[in-house]
């Protein structure tokens, strides 16, 4: 009886903390979305309001006419870079993992150890050399320079290998060989579909991290028609928008809303994917 009462109190306490954290997660974004519909004047009087106002179109007008923030351009470039990077990373990581799992070659174990060793190298420490190299060949404003590097994604190779070992029986590959299938064909037609669940999880994370990346694009892209979404966002801190509070919030909302919508649709898989990554890693 006593134990029951104690459990109840603990439970109530748990819910209070969880609800507080939920408010903390949502509140900043709620203020942002509401303020995107309010005028600068209203925000100056009371910066916090839970009820949307009617100045959304006015803010849209300000943000499209003033300054260099251009959500459409940023959106387009970010979609191109993130989309292509995700395709490259998932396809070639699966291919590399396939080479490690299916074939017996002399340097196989050495190669796998090498993949593990380079997994932790952060992009920042190689940036100076990377920039100099790209500058020398005159490709600084070329989106390809942000896409091609994703072909070599060591941590994804590691993940794909872990997933492939139990889920791709080598007998299938051998059966395909007996039927006369070429190796590359076997990979594309038989192995890739089996790897679909792993590819889907990894695709989400690659897409999101590529979409959110600020450092590399900020170093490489100098022309405003090549800017990605995070660079566009960083422009909102510029002087032009300093006094246009409503339009700053609108700009932020434009970059966040697509992410939140996609997240809410895929949340179950994303949360499962986060857990999977650590257990396998």
């Amino acid at each position, binding site marked *: 009886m006593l134990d029951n009462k104690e459990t109840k109190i603990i*439970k109530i306490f*748990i819910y209070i903390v*969880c609800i507080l*954290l*939920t408010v*903390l*997660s*949502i509140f*900043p*974004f709620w203020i942002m979305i509401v303020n995107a519909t309010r005028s600068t004047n209203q*925000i100056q009087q*009371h*910066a916090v309001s839970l009820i949307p106002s009617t100045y959304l179109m006015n803010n849209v007008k300000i943000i499209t006419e003033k300054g260099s923030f251009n959500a459409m351009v940023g959106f387009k470039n970010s979609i191109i870079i993130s989309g292509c990077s995700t395709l490259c990373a998932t396809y*070639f990581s699966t291919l*590399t993992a396939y*080479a*490690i799992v*299916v*074939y*017996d*070659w002399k340097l196989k174990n050495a190669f796998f150890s090498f993949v593990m060793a380079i997994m*932790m190298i952060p992009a*920042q*420490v*190689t*940036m*100076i*050399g990377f920039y*100099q*190299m790209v500058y020398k060949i005159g490709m600084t404003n070329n989106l390809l320079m942000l896409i*091609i*590097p994703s*072909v*070599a994604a060591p941590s994804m190779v590691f993940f794909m290998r872990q997933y492939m070992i139990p889920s791709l029986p080598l007998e299938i590959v051998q059966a395909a060989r007996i039927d006369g299938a070429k190796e590359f064909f076997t990979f594309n037609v038989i192995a890739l579909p089996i790897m679909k669940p792993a590819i889907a999880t990894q695709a989400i994370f690659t897409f999101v991290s590529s*979409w*959110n990346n*600020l*450092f590399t694009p900020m170093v490489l892209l100098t022309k405003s028609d090549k800017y990605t979404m*995070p*660079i566009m*966002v*960083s422009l*909102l*801190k510029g002087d032009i928008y300093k006094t246009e*509070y409503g339009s*700053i919030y609108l700009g*932020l909302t434009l*970059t*966040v809303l697509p*992410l939140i919508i996609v*997240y809410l649709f895929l*949340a*179950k898989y*994303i*949360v499962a994917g*986060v*857990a999977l*990554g*650590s*257990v396998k890693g």
Partner: protein
Amino acid sequence: MKNKNNINAKYAKFGYIFVIPFVVVFLIFSFWPILYTTAVGFTDLKGLGNTNMHLLKDDIFANFKNVLSSATFQVSIKNTVKMWVLNFIPQVLLALLLASWFTDKRSKVAGEGFFKIIFYMPNIITAATVAILFASLFGYPMGPVNDLMTRFGLNRSGEPINFFLSKGVAQGVVIFIQTWMWYGYTTINIIAGVNGISPEIFESAEVDGATRTQTFFQITLPNIKTIMLFILVTSLIGGLNMFDIPKLLVTNSGPDNATKTTSVFIYDQAFSGSYLYNRAGAASMIMFVIIVILSALLFYLMRDKDEVALKKLAKKQEKMRAAELKAQELLKGV
């Protein structure tokens, strides 16, 4: 047996062929830049658009010495470490607490899935956006935080506060944002780790009358060591490269370079002012070495001693078995 080896040999070349794209791209876009960055650290390369570099003649380590003795770099290392440690500790404590609640069968929390989704949400939002959003929330003179403080009577002076004029507040907000963005991720990982522990261990602990606290410290914690190491190492590497939030939250890194991290230092050296690529290169390499040393140290400290001992034992037994087999074979031969 021979036939199988033949087949393997026949297809071995595809192993090499299929890793070509990975290897080529790695060599060009990662390996070469690392070498290049290292090399730049030993040269006089500076100035926008300049690519001609010459090895330093007088003192080959001049850039490294310069960076290491630079007050700004020292401050940026201090800031980076401080802000990482102060966000990591509350983040892990909160995550451990939430995970222990969510995995405890005795007080099953309804809506666990919902809470996980909400707690993880800040992590997928663009860090650049989050930084500017918080800059606006803490805005002066009339940001939402100021508004709330006045409304709830928390601000006695009645005057709006310019938060980012204070070094402590600027760093505090960075720390808060980092914790806020990452505790959900850490929680989900720890929950996955706890769920991976065999339920029988918990059951027998319950039968033995262990309290919640005892169960947590003596069963849960030791069993999620690997996950904790994973979280620690990834967070450390991420933390030492903190860039987006400190760069965009306050203009010019705030008062006394309050939010200048090493990554911001490297960026500012290389891509603004006098474009000192050589010093940025040297600073990058210093950070690289620090990260490698710290990660290796963590792996060494957190390595599973029991597992190492078990492996040694297994090896010994294997050797003995092999010796036995050999002896038997020899005996047979006799």
